[in-house]
């Protein structure tokens, strides 16, 4: 990664928020640790009588959460009735409003039933103290069922019903009408009418999805010409197939589905990958490495990068001709240099195979000299190595390759690569920093001696 260094520094200099880092070296953090120590040191006093009752219980442990004193009168008193509430105006919605008079049936009455029991009613009921008494007027079923939908027989009436439901914005009612239409209309007619009714259509698709009516859903999508959605929906079925061979065969059958050009490449990769994983999975695991680092999971159904990592880990040295060779994987799936590099780096570092790590960077120029090259910034390389617990000796080779001096010092300090810090300060001719750094070194250490030598070196022209 060729970061634009100037830009980056610029960012930090111009940054409007105070440099606040999540680094553990941070002062704030040590303050926090201090506070923790302080608080912990007073713990014994508190533990004398361990009263935990302050902790609010949130489990089903049966302990009282706090007594709820229920005063009916109090609440009822505050609810005297007066004049009618000021009404809010209706907003002009851009949905086509259907004139109710078009229909011979009382559609409004039908939907009024849907509008729940009125709240004032329900609160009165809730305030009633005799909870055990059966309350006849409470029971409010969805009154939609009470009004028979069977009255709507002509297509025109059915569609009017549907449009009215849509204009009322209540998804529950829309779905109810759709369920009725599904039962009483032929698929062809229903699909045709839904084409121009997007809201109703989306409700219908959602209903079919929820009730897992895959067959009808596919038919609908086909009728609508939404072939890509159809392909994805069919492809989705592979998630439910546990057996890997069956899954592979299913994926193979998916290849002919009408995916978008981009997606079809991915699905093909998916099939090839699973096919490959099945082969890799059955390779006898006799080598020492499998004993030393036993597998934690099967490689089946893992993502491509994970598969590559696995092969870099267990099959690194195999020739390109074998299916499990990392290079073969890279070729087959046309992985980018960076993708390959990052994965191989992480895998070899995890195994502490430092010569392999080193070899990844080595390239020869036309004169035959070797130099270290990386598609990744060396800062990131150091990060990857550090996360795989690389020792300081290994880290410092890569820290040294970080171009930007500031960044190099930061990294070197973080990873305790003292030599690099000292050398960089020397190159910057920064005597003050060097003095400061000496204070942090152990007394009598090699680093301290080196700094002393440098400071005493009269040939260096310090800038400060």
């Amino acid at each position: 990664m060729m970061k634009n260094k100037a830009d980056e520094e610029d960012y930090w200099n111009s940054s409007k928020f105070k440099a606040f880092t999540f680094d553990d070296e941070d002062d704030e953090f040590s303050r926090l640790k201090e506070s923790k120590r302080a608080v912990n040191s007073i713990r014994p006093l508190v533990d004398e009588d361990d009263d935990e009752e302050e902790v609010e219980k949130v489990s089903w442990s049966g302990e009282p959460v706090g007594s709820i004193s229920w005063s009916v009168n109090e609440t009822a008193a505050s609810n005297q009735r007066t004049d009618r509430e000021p009404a809010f105006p209706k907003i002009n919605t851009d949905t086509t409003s259907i004139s109710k008079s078009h229909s011979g049936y009382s559609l409004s009455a039908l939907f009024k039933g849907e509008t729940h029991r009125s709240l004032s009613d329900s609160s009165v009921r809730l305030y009633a103290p005799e909870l055990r008494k059966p309350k006849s007027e409470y029971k409010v079923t969805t009154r939609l069922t009470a009004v028979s939908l069977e009255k709507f027989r002509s297509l025109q009436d059915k569609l009017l019903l549907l449009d009215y439901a849509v204009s009322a914005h209540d998804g529950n009612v829309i779905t109810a009408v759709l369920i009725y239409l599904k039962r009483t209309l032929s698929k062809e007619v229903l699909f045709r009418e839904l084409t121009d009714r997007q809201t109703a259509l989306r409700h219908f698709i959602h209903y079919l999805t929820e009730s897992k009516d895959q067959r009808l859903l596919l038919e609908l999508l086909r009728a609508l010409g939404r072939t890509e959605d159809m392909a994805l929906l069919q492809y989705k079925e592979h998630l439910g197939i546990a057996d890997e061979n069956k899954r592979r065969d299913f994926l193979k059958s998916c290849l002919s589905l009408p995916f978008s050009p981009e997606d079809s490449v991915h699905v093909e990769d998916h099939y090839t990958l699973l096919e490959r994983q099945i082969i890799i999975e059955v390779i006898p695991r006799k080598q020492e490495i499998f004993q030393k680092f036993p597998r934690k999971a099967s490689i089946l159904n893992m993502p491509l990068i994970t598969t590559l990592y696995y092969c870099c880990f267990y099959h690194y040295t195999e020739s390109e001709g074998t299916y499990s060779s990392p290079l073969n994987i890279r070729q087959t799936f046309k992985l980018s240099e960076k993708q390959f590099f990052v994965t191989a780096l992480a895998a070899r570092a995890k195994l502490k195979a430092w010569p392999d790590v080193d070899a990844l960077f080595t390239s020869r120029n036309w004169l035959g000299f070797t130099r270290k090259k990386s598609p990744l910034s060396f800062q990131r390389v150091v990060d990857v190595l550090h996360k795989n617990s690389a020792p300081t000796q290994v880290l410092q080779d890569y820290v040294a390759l970080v171009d930007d001096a500031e960044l190099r010092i930061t990294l070197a300090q973080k990873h305790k690569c003292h030599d690099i810090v000292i050398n960089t300060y020397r190159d910057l001719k920064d005597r003050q920093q060097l003095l400061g750094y000496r204070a942090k070194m152990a007394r009598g250490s090699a680093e301290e001696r080196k700094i002393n030598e440098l400071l005493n070196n009269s040939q260096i022209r310090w800038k400060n």
Partner: protein
Amino acid sequence: MAHSARTDCPELPDFFLLKRLARDQLIYLLEQLPGKKDLFIEADLMSPLDRIANVSTLKQHEVDKLYKVEYKPIVSTSDQLCFLIRPRIQTVKWIYVANADKATGRFRRYKIIFTPQKFYACDAVLEEQGIIGDVTTDEWSFYLLPLDDDIISLELPEFFRDNFLAGDQRWVRTAGSALHLLHSLYGPFSKVYGIGRCSKMAYESWREQVEEGEQKARQAEIGKVFLIDRDVDFVTPLCSQVVYEGLVDDIFKIKCACVEFGPDVTSSDKSIKVMLNSQDRVFNEIRNEHFSNVFGFLSQKARNLQTSYDKRRGMDIKQMKTFVSEELKGLKQEHRLLSLHIGACESIMKKKTKQDFQELLKTEHSLLEGFEIRESISFIEEHINRQVSMIESLRLLCLLSITENGKSSFFLCSYGVDHLLTFANLRQLGLLVEQQPGETLTVMESKVGKLVNDRTGGKLSDAFSSLAKKSNFRALSRKLNLVPKSDEEYDLRVPRDMAYIFSGAYVPLSCKLIEQVLERDGWTGLEEVTRLLNGHEFAVTGYGADSKAKNDAQRIILVMFLGGCTFSEISALRFLGREKPSMLFLLTIWLMETPRVSVTLISSIF
């Protein structure tokens, strides 16, 4: 630095009433099935139920055993089974399939209580299975769960997905009913503002319910209402949270205002569950703070605590007695809370240091500002290649896509081709922007990964700058001044605007809109903004409201996020409430199980 409560704050309505209403209705419904019964509870209803009732309440009403709905065969021996579930077809089908009573000739009574409402589609399933009659159904209209002094939640995990992804409007009426409940208990509202399709429909639904029902006139406790659809602003929930409460949620997952701290936080071998709300005095002071301020505050607190404990040295018996009876309890509680939050901070630090948090933030800020897009793309690409957290990668991709209309497909290599489906859903939501045919070149280039190559890189950034013109976010950001000028120092200790919740780099679009509309008392002057947001804005006045308009309640504004909001947004609104005493004190509502929108966006995919 802790913000002391303003003395002239209007008093917040007492939401405890909502809990009592819900609890009493539930008890009433349980009593509808007299005698001993086993109760099956839907998993995602457990936590909300915990907030309003407990086991002994249920036992008092003859609930014998409690089960979680797990889609396994029913083993209960009780003669009466009661199911407390969401109106989901899958669950209703399970109830039928799971019990073999019909086959074995066993007679039992069944009752299904749907919450917050019953759907016709569920009834249809019961009818199809031929068990209507054997099964009675009911509705528990549990719409609103108060989680804190200023937060109420609708606890509907599927709201977002159903409404925005599937385009199913089944919850519109629920939202309207929730609003209606608040209106009848704490209204009348004097004014309602809103933006978004769903908001508009919810308003209509509420208005109809108001017209149908009778109203009890009362002293208003909530003045104004602001409804906003989540899809008006997807950018904000995609940004990393750096406010304490947001971080705690990111790492430990706050569920119904409750969090479980593991052994690494408690420094013992057990986990504990803690309520996180304004009752926790320590938490209350740091919840809205930028994370960088939290350490300082905790250190100070620890020192104060030490001093208070030290006081007991040299006390005589009598003084000691007073100390123990008056102060010790408070100190001990504070001590416990303090060590918990210090532990939580440590744990957050550890996790965040591990994942290049600093660079992640920098990338986000660059994307928001529209600078160094190439570097950002490169960072995201490497993030994906290294298979670092999938959610983070997806979040970054969406952010890149929304702010820059770009896209990358390394993702499938690193996290599995299955995510084709994820992408299809994200496109449907508008979180990933479909490439135009002419732009396919860009996709191909990023796919081949030649970003490091300067020539291609140059072409790429050209393509992006031309795309940026089309990006509404960029235009909105300029219009509303969402990204503050970067040449000034931003002191996070003394926040000067809502941008502090994102380290001073970005003012959340959603909150900025709310502020602007309330200040202007409507949408006048924001025509260009609403055009960019696809319209659906409204501002309506209830008549007769102005007579009472002068009281404190008019400063209490209910903000309802349809589809969920983040803790960062809540913090931003609280900040606004402190800064604008003349008109604002905010009350936030979200409509999801968790406010972790970005996570929900992604996990809702399959």
